């Protein structure tokens, strides 16, 4: 277990370094002023420039003893803290809701798979998982705007000032991973059907719910492996949804800083996301270890 975690940590470090190299590829333009209104722009893209940028980057960290300040003179870590708190309001509930309800819905779907309840559920989940989250969000906004305009509802639809601001973006990023978890859980349960241990359990007269528990325990390794995907999906969609809803979180500013070529700031906003991914990997490994103390994969 310890070796496994150490290996994940090393991979994580390599990925961070790889990301920094991609981030530091030269993308500045050099503008020369020739007097009057005559400008020429040059777009150098050489290895020397790349080397220089990497050295500057390391130098920046050495002199500032950290991330330093942004253009407005606010320490980057300070602004990161504010933004990250807003992000956490979305990411943590979205992640656990997606995994928890996804699994519960998956079990329900499996349990009623041959009844009409299950069929309708399968159909609905399939339709909703085909709707891209940005359309879902825009559609929801359209309805809410109509409601607000007609005076049926009073709320702020954009921004991050109200206690309920995080709910709309959170719903938008939760739906797809939740349906994915649901589908995955019910499929992996269906794969267990027909195994010998189920016949034994049934012949001993075990109740259906207890049999379900047996099956679920056999599915843990593959279900928990999906936690990383759920997190990745949430983190990929979050910046876009935050931009659409003007929710000023770390994702919003990550995109902003990438487009403004602020390398240090981009890294500061990207690092927490990478740490979230790493935490998810570690967490799912630990939970797997705790639930199924056999090496995963040895079951099959």
């Amino acid at each position, binding site marked *: 277990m310890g070796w496994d975690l150490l290996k994940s940590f090393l991979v994580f470090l390599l990925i961070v370094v790889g990301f920094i190299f991609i981030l530091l590829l030269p993308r500045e333009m050099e503008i020369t002023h020739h007097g009057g209104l005559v400008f020429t722009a040059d777009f150098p893209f050489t290895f020397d420039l790349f080397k220089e940028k990497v050295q500057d980057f390391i130098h920046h960290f050495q002199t500032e003893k950290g991330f330093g300040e942004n253009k407005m003179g606010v320490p980057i870590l300070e602004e990161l803290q504010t933004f990250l708190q807003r992000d956490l309001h979305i990411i943590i509930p979205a992640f656990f809701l997606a995994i928890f309800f996804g699994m519960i819905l998956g079990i329900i779907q499996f349990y009623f798979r041959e009844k009409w309840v299950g069929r309708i559920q399968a159909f609905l989940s399939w339709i909703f998982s085909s709707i891209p989250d*940005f359309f879902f969000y825009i559609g929801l906004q359209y309805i809410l705007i109509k409601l607000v305009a007609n005076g049926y509802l009073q709320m702020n639809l954009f921004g991050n000032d109200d206690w309920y601001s995080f709910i709309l973006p959170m719903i938008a990023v939760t739906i797809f991973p939740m349906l994915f978890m649901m589908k995955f859980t019910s499929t992996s349960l269906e794969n267990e059907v027909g195994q010998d241990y189920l016949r034994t359990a049934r012949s001993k007269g075990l109740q259906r719910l207890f049999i379900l528990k047996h099956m679920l325990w056999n599915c843990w390794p593959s279900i928990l492996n999906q936690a990383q995907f759920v997190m990745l999906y949430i983190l990929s*969609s979050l910046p*876009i949804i935050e931009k659409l809803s003007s929710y000023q979180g770390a994702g919003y500013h990550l995109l902003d800083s990438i487009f403004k070529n602020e390398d240090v700031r981009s890294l500061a906003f990207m690092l927490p996301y990478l740490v979230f991914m790493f935490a998810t990997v570690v967490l799912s490994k630990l939970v797997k270890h705790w639930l199924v103390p056999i090496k995963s994969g040895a079951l099959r």
Partner: protein
Amino acid sequence: MKILVFIKKNPLFSLGTVMFFLLVFIALFGKYLPGIDTRLDEIIFLRDENNIPFAPPFGPNERFPIGTDRLGRDLLSLIVLGARETLIVIIAIALIRYLLAIPLGFFAHKNRFGVNILLNWINGFLSYIPTIIIVILLATLHPIVLSKIRPLYLILIIAALEVGRVAEMIKLELNQLSTKEFITGGNAVGISNFRLLKKYYMPFLYGKLLVNFVGDIGKVMFLLGQLGFLGIFISHSFMQTDAGVSGFENTSLSWPTLLTDAFRDLRGAIWIPFYASLAMTYVIFTFNILSQGIQKLLK
């Protein structure tokens, strides 16, 4: 009668095919449809009931069934005329991705040229970092932004980034197939690797590849939509907008370009991002239904 029985047996496939042909019809012949303004006239103002002029964007009304964009161009015409470019781009991306993935998957299965390690690293990297962030970082590099064949580069980048996932899938399929006896037979006869792939492996893979390929077209549309919100399109030109300041000028009609100003439009002209993303949702839906339908059909 036979057709009716087929439709009843394969409802998803039939629905998907109808939706797909509707899409192709609009892409090919959309400009000849009545009510489509091929010149995309920019209406500078309209007058309200008190004869007071007001500026675009105009909301949905009798003249513009789903409204206009910020320049006063009919949104329905824009979407219909943009369908062809959008479809070509997403299908091209998915096609290139699969054409690259088949040899990569085969080499990874055979464990040649270190492809296996490469695939592991690509997949590991992208399971940590959202694909969209990498696309943004690569798409804004100057050699790519300023290139004359920028659309081609971007299509290649988007296709190549997810190639690892597809190649991994193909590798697993090949690993499974390779335990079959007829493969051992082929090996025993001593045929070349290329012929082994073409005649022994591929015939068993076509079905699965087709299902995944069609499903992937929907995923590409999703990614392009997301990129549209950020102002990154497959084709546009880089221009100087002010002294020393430059930005992207939009020169194409494809759907993601309608989403550029979405975060502003959401507060006023919400019909622009709404109908543009509705069109994308239709495409994603069509290809999802089709891929499910083909899967059921092949079973």
